[in-house]
């Protein structure tokens, strides 16, 4: 049960990164047909970030805090929690708001994204930022899982 929570948290997070990657790729050369698809990807990506937030948050409060965190902090690599996990859990909080902003821009400008190149570039850069932060957070998650295994609780 606990392992499946981490799995769902990680999978939804990675799928969210992937959907914003699709937003980025489709936006490089958008057409009237692909704008609808871009909106759907952005909408799904935002929902996936919220799902990942809720599931990861439940796991963090119910299992990680009481069981995993003390073992990592008492083990040979306490920095895994004190630096990596603390940074990860707080930087993650940026993502839902960035995702809402990107999705809001895509819906608000809609077909205008085809001719408004400044706005299109802004959405592209913000999508790239979400992908970049998402990948950094995924890497940090991998480090925390490795740290938990080393501490004998993973």
């Amino acid at each position: 049960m606990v392992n499946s929570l981490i799995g769902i948290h990680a999978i939804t997070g990675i799928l969210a990164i992937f959907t914003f990657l699709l937003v980025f790729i489709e936006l490089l050369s958008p057409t009237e047909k692909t704008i609808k698809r871009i909106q759907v990807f952005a909408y799904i990506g935002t929902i996936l970030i919220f799902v990942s937030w809720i599931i990861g948050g439940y796991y963090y409060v119910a299992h990680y805090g009481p069981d995993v965190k003390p073992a990592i902090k008492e083990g040979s690599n306490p920095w895994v929690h004190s630096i990596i996990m603390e940074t990860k859990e707080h930087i993650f909080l940026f993502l839902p708001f960035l995702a809402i902003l990107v999705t809001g821009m895509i819906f608000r400008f809609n077909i205008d994204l085809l001719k408004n190149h400044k706005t299109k570039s802004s959405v592209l850069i913000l999508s790239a930022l979400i992908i970049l932060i998402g990948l950094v957070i995924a890497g940090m998650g991998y480090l925390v899982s490795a740290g938990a295994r080393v501490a004998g609780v993973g």
Partner: protein
Amino acid sequence: MKLNIKSLNYSTILTICLIVVLTILGELSEFFKTFLTSITGHHWVTKGVFSLIFFVIIYFLTSKIVKDGDDLTRQIIYTIIATILGAIIIFEFYLWHFVS
């Protein structure tokens, strides 16, 4: 209802600033961390709930005074700077906190 993207942008920037401030204050002041914990049972959950509520409130407040426009380049640059700086500040803070 038409979304006001400039307001959405301002609320994103201010929410990121709030997350950074709550994170650092929570670590520096035990009293503040206890206060955050007392609201939802966990300080991190409270930070998330506060951020969501703050984001919505700032959006509705600013959308009444900020006129939306098509050129958002400058605002988006501010958002990117706030995000990257916020992430670096949080990482550096926890690094410093651990080392010291």
